[in-house]
């Protein structure tokens, strides 16, 4: 599991871990039943406080994305509904906010932003079809 932390980013480290694990799940780079690194291993690897890793894992567990097995580590939940639609939308909303803020800075109207997204989506689809 490859995570990249940026301390000094303003986002608490536990939240960076939660977000990145969610992306890995969404991207299929973490599959159902797969084991997450033990807390101490990940803390050592990322050079962060083990309590922070524990907090991130707890958050993921509360969201139903991972399951703790007694004395045997933390695993990606088996059910494929791991990432609820509302959760996926919430993740995307963060990106949308950033895009909209940028658009406002550049004085691009909302209609034009939506048009741009449709255009980019078409371009991506044709590229993928090739």
């Amino acid at each position, binding site marked *: 599991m490859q995570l990249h*932390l940026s*301390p*000094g*980013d*303003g*986002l*608490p*480290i*536990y*939240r960076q871990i939660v977000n990145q694990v969610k992306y890995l799940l969404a991207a299929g780079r973490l599959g159902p039943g797969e084991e997450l690194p033990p*807390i*101490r291993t990940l*803390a*050592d690897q990322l*050079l*962060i*406080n*083990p*309590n*922070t890793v524990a*907090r991130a894992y707890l958050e993921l567990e509360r969201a139903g994305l991972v399951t703790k097995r007694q004395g045997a580590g933390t695993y990606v939940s088996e059910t494929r509904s791991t990432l609820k639609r509302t959760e996926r939308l919430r993740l995307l909303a963060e990106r949308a906010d950033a895009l909209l*803020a940028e658009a*406002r*800075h550049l004085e691009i109207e909302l209609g034009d932003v939506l048009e741009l997204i449709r255009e980019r989506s078409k371009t991506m689809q044709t590229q993928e079809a090739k």
Partner: protein
Amino acid sequence: MTSPTPSASEPVISLTGLTRRFRTKVALDNVSLDVTRGQVFGLVGANGAGKTTLIKHLLGLYAPAQGSVRVFGLDPIAEPASVLGRIGFLSEDRDLPPWMRVEELVRYTAAFYPKWDPAYAAHLQEEFQLDSRARIRHLSRGELAKAGLLLALAHRPELLVLDEPSSGLDPLVRREVLEAIVRTVADEGRTVFFSSHLLDEIERVSDQIAMMAHGRIVLRGGLADLLEAHHRLTLRFDQPVTQPPRLAGALSIRGSGMEWTAVCNGALAELEAAATRLGARVVAEETATLEEIFLARVGRVGSTPQPTEG
């Protein structure tokens, strides 16, 4: 938690109203904080903020002029042996005897600690690549730090106290210092108290932090909570504004003309409402970085009063 004392709920360190003056200069001004077992507590502050003075009180090197200091529930002045035997300490100036060889220093220090773990000491010495025969005076800065760290860790202390552990070290040695902190807490919930002016390392390893300036604690709490409670808002006005706008909830505000960026503490909805009342739009909003929070908080102390809404 196998150790008999203190209980999980009892703080490992407890400072109450600690005040200290050096002649007319106030070094510590009514400092209160608690550190609970298993925490990594990061003390942030510029040079001269009072961090080292605070740490010297923990070790019983200074007696509190006012207020109280308790470590493991004990007074370090009254019961130095019971307190110091359970603390691993790395001082900022690494005051190790220059004439000793590494092996002599290890043997000498081991004698003070009933719980000294020779196998662990040997392991650390190998890992840190410290030559047994080398004299302390010939060690490099990094080696000196590692020797100090070895002495602090090898009796497996319940509380590790590090004063500016990475000060003046290259990134490789800094990494070893951080690894030592991470492993110490991973190891049966031991407690770490460390001071630093390097916000990056504070952010990596601390659960709880306290920011110090001019002998006072200006902010303390859970690191993640503090980060999430501070926002950086960029306001845009229709007309150029010549004076910094007085945004309610802003700790600091900088900018010019029509665009101003504020570091704020508080609920986002309220901050946005306050911006609207000033006739501004919020054009960007992000969580503030630890550095921004630090500068905003420390900049406030003893300087201009907090801006309020005009």
